[in-house]
C-alpha cells in the first residue's frame, strides 16, 4: 500500500529537467500551479497538460511513475467528483442528461467535474515531477536560498531547510519500517484489510505506536551522529553545492512565461468551461 506514495522520491537520471536550478524549479512549480488555477477552460488546462507531458518526456522519468502520484489521491478525486456531479448549480442553458429521483446531472456538471479532476491530477503530477527530478538536498538548498531574505527577521532558514531534507531522507526508511511492523502485526493475526472505517482506523494504532517509538530512537541516534560530525548550526557552515542559473533556466523561464500568458489569453478570448 505504501508503494503508491510517490511524493518525496527522487528518480535518478541525467536530463534537461534534472539539471535545472532548483530555485527556478520551485518558482516554476508555483507559476504552474497559478496557471492551473487561472485556467477557466479546457484550452488553458490542455496547454498546462501539454507542457507537463513535454516536461515528463524531457526528464526521462517514466510516465507510469508520475501517474502513480495521482493514485495516491484517488480517494480525494472520487469524493470530489461525486460532490461536484450532484451538487453543481447549473445555469439556465444547461442540458439535463440524467434525471432520477432527487438526482439531476447536467452537461455542465459533467464538464465542470472533468475540469476539476484534470486540475487536481495535474497539480499532484507536477508536484511529484519536482521531487522526481530534484534531489531532496538541492530542493532544500533551493528553498534555503529563496528564503534567505527572511534571515533579516531572524527566521531560522538554514535549520528549516535541514529539517526538511532530513524528513525527506527518512521517508524511504520509515516506509520500510512501517511495512516491517505491519508484517509483524499480521503475523500476530492483525487484520488491516477488512471491516469498516472505524475498525480499520483502530487497526492502525498498533502500527503507529511502534513507529513513533522507533522514530524517537532514530532521532536521538541521528542527533548523536550529527554531533559527532561536528554539526554546530549555520555559523561557520560552508556549502558544497553551489546553485547557478544557466541557459537552461532562461529557456525554461520563457516557456513558463508563455504558458501563463497563454492561459490568460485563452481565458479572455474563449471564456469559461461552461
Amino acid at each position: 500500500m505504501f508503494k503508491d506514495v510517490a511524493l518525496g522520491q527522487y528518480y535518478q537520471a541525467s536530463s534537461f529537467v534534472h539539471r535545472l536550478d532548483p530555485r527556478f524549479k520551485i518558482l516554476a512549480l508555483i507559476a504552474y500551479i497559478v496557471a492551473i488555477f487561472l485556467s477557466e477552460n479546457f484550452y488553458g488546462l490542455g496547454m498546462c497538460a501539454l507542457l507537463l507531458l513535454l516536461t515528463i518526456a524531457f526528464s526521462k522519468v517514466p510516465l507510469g511513475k508520475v501517474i502513480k502520484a495521482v493514485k495516491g489521491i484517488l480517494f480525494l478525486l472520487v469524493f470530489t467528483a461525486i460532490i461536484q456531479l450532484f451538487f453543481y448549480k447549473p445555469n439556465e442553458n444547461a442540458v439535463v442528461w440524467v434525471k432520477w429521483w432527487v438526482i439531476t446531472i447536467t452537461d455542465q456538471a459533467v464538464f465542470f467535474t472533468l475540469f476539476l479532476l484534470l486540475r487536481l491530477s495535474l497539480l499532484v503530477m507536477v508536484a511529484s515531477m519536482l521531487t522526481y527530478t530534484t534531489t531532496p538536498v538541492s530542493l532544500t538548498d533551493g528553498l534555503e536560498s529563496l528564503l534567505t531574505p527572511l534571515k533579516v527577521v531572524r527566521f531560522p532558514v538554514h535549520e528549516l531547510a535541514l529539517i526538511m531534507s532530513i524528513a525527506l531522507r527518512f521517508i524511504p526508511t520509515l516506509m520500510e519500517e512501517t511495512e516491517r511492523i505491519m508484517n509483524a502485526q499480521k503475523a500476530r493475526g492483525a487484520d488491516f484489510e477488512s471491516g469498516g472505517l472505524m475498525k480499520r482506523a483502530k487497526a492502525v494504532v498498533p502500527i503507529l505506536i511502534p513507529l513513533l517509538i522507533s522514530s524517537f530512537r532514530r532521532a536521538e541516534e541521528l542527533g548523536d551522529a550529527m554531533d559527532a560530525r561536528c554539526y554546530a548550526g549555520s555559523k561557520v557552515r560552508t556549502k558544497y553545492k553551489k546553485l547557478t542559473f544557466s541557459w537552461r533556466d532562461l529557456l525554461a523561464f520563457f516557456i513558463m512565461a508563455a504558458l501563463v500568458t497563454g492561459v490568460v489569453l485563452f481565458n479572455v478570448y474563449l471564456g469559461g468551461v461552461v
Partner: protein
Amino acid sequence: MKALEFKNVSFSYRKAEEGKTSSFAVKGVNFSVEEGEFVAVLGHNGSGKSTLARLANGLLEASDGSVEVFGVPLSEQKNLFSVRKNVGIVFQNPDNQTVASIVEDDIAFGPENIGVPREEIGVRIEESLAAVGMSEYKERMTSALSGGQKQRIAIAGVLALKPKIMILDESTAMLDPKGRREIMQVVKKLNKEEGMTILLITHFMEEALMADRAIVMNRGEIVMQGTPEEIFERHDELETYNLALPPIGVLWKKLEEGGMPVGYALTPEDLAEEIAKCISKSSA
C-alpha cells in the same frame, strides 16, 4: 604519542545516589591508545563499551576523571569542537547516521559543518570514497545501498573530516557476514596503510583478532587487557564475562600461526573459500 587516554573515568547515566555503585555505566576506567594503534574493546551487552565511545569524543561528559585526546582534555567546552574533528565515530545503525539522501551530499555534511571551502570538500569526497572503495557510488541514493555499503559511506563521511582516531561503535552488529567483512577490510586498510588509530568496539570476538591489543569490559570496568592472543588463551575467564571465541575464529588463528596466511573470514563458507584461494596460490 598517546592518541587517546582515559584517566580514572567514571560515568553514570543517572545522578549518583548515595551508597549505590551499580548505577555506573563506566567505572574507574584507565587505558590509553597509542597513535596508529588498533585496539579492540570487547564486552557483552551492557558492559559499558558503547559509553566508552561516547565519552571519547565528548558526546558524553565524564562524571569523574578525565578523557584526553592527544593530550587535550575533553572536559573544557572550548576544546570540544577541535577534538571532535580528530575523533570520528561510526555508529551501529547505518540508517540512523545518514543525513542526506545522496551519497556525496552525506559525505559533504561533516566538512560543511567545520567550514571547509567548497573545492576542498569535493577533493575530500573523492578521497574518502576511494578509501572505502565506493567511488562509483558518489551520486547514488543512500537508501538504495546495502547495509555494508551504507556503513562504508558512514566511514567515508567520518573520513572526510580527516580525523586521527576512528571509533567503530558496534558498526558491524547490524550487518550480514558479507557486510561485516567489507567493513573489517576497510578498517584494516585504514589502520595499516593510512596509519589511522582505531578503537573497535564489538561483541564479535573474531573481529578482535585483527587488533594489536584488546580490552575486555564487564559491568563498566576493564577486566582483561592484552594482545588478542593472550586474551583468547584465557577462554575460561572470558566465559565468565559471557564471551567466547567462535570455532571459526580459533581455526583461522591456528592456520595463520601455522604459516598459512589465510584471508580474514568470519563464516565457515568464507574460510573455506579463503583456504582454497591460499592453496591455489601456493601451488601456482
